[in-house]
């Protein structure tokens, strides 16, 4: 069963995030992916997350696809104009990549090349329009393609938005769904009560919501995220438990595993596990979450 079929039938999917390296040596990517072979439904390969230059999503997906992994390509508006985006999407299809996530991309100033010129020739909604045209066999200029690509299309949604920002987020999600988005991956979820409030606003028949479960590395990291990332809140009890635990790593894994279990019980369409460089801890986490 492909990811597309699983998402369509709302079977609980388990996704893992695998960052390509900053360098030409992809061996660590292979090693960490092989450690969980057969246990994940697909591997999400970020496109220069946080605007930090590294090997791209297309390269990472093609590399992992060739080794038998199903992947999700990230297509990002920040660094490519309409020609490059269309070219990459066609290349991805030819390379056997069948899932993609359209994303805006973090601002270049947050990354390690703040002097670069960002592109944003197209915004997210316009990128989805291209994808829709593509599936109809035409490019953005209306010219017929030799072979139309077919993708399972996803995007992202900020589950931490509140008040007026949440209204806008929901409206944008609805527009994205009309634009062909089948699944939406959320910002990291820690506070299940807050997440439930968000989910009350979503029509899960129309779009599969896949929350991100971020594997914390320490109480310090949790505090930093809670204080500095507006869209994410971490319950203080959760932070305290990590802080007082004799084995901090074990507690971080336990926390993430419990979140996955709860989200599964809530009837979510799946989870994306993000380890931020700790891909080698994924087997332990999957064990703990009984996946």
């Amino acid at each position, binding site marked *: 069963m492909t990811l597309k079929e699983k998402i369509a039938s709302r079977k609980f999917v388990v996704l893992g995030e695998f960052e390509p390296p900053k360098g030409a040596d992809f061996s660590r990517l292979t090693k960490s992916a092989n450690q969980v072979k057969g246990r994940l439904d697909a591997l999400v390969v970020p496109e220069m997350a946080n605007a930090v230059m590294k090997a791209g999503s297309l390269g990472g997906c093609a590399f992992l696809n060739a080794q038998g992994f199903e992947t999700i390509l990230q297509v990002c508006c920040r660094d490519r104009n309409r020609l490059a985006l269309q070219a990459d999407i066609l290349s991805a299809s030819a390379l056997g990549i069948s899932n993609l996530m359209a994303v805006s991309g973090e*601002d*270049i*100033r947050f990354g390690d090349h*703040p*002097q*670069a*010129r*960002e592109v944003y020739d197209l915004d997210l909604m316009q990128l989805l329009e291209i994808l829709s045209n593509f599936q109809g066999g035409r490019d953005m200029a209306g010219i017929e393609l030799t072979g139309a690509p077919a993708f399972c299309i996803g995007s992202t949604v900020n589950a931490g938005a509140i008040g007026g920002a949440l209204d806008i987020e929901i409206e944008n999600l609805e527009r994205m769904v009309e634009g062909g988005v089948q699944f939406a991956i959320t910002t990291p979820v820690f506070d299940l009560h807050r997440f439930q409030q968000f989910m009350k606003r979503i029509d899960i028949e129309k779009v599969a919501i896949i929350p991100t479960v971020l594997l914390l590395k320490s109480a310090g990291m949790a505090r930093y995220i809670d204080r500095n990332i507006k869209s994410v809140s971490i319950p203080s009890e959760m932070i305290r438990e990590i802080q007082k635990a004799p084995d901090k790593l074990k507690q971080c894994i336990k926390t993430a595993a419990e979140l996955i279990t709860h989200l599964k019980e809530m009837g979510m369409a799946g989870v994306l596990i993000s380890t931020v460089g700790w891909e080698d801890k994924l087997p332990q986490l999957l064990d703990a979450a009984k996946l």
Partner: protein
Amino acid sequence: MIVADKKPIEEIIDMVKGYHKILIVGCNECVTVCEAGGKKEVGVLASALRMYFMNEGEKIEVDEITLERQCDHEYLEEIRNSIDQYDAVVSLACGVGVQFMAEKYFGTPVYPGVNTCFMGVTEERGVWSERCQGCGQCILDKTAGICPISRCAKRLLNGPCGGSTQGKCEISKDLDCAWQLIIDRLKELDRLDEYEEIAPIKDWSTERAGGPRKVVREDVRQ
């Protein structure tokens, strides 16, 4: 100066359709010089709108005013006492003036009456061309006073490219190759050896790519 071009009248008609009383506001600065939004153009647009709506059998009152500038508080304040009489404003200033007007008169719809194009010069009456993109880090000292960012089609800092033929750019036989101009002027100034220096990779963070910009001068701030 900021160069603007007239918007097609059909676009402006669509914007103001349904309003009963509108004010057309010109600007006495750049858009007057490039003949897109000064007192004369305000009068022409107002007449055209009156005529159009009269032919359509619709009643619309169109008033006219031209301010000294629309990018400064003091001049925009001149319409404060009369703004509430109008259902909408069409500003013939550049995009800067339109926005400043909209910021100041938050409850009044403000529509753009021109298309703002670039920072440029009057080559001759009726011909304006671009000279500056406001990249925030001027390199004209290195390029003989000719800007490759605004005048080279590819914005090359180390040109020319292979598309330069007999001094013209590949995108149009009417467009001078900026790098040919740079080389010619360096020769004239006996500074051609400077052409051998490779321009470093540009820091675009001072350009619009670095986000909306602001200049704060504490020495002149009140």
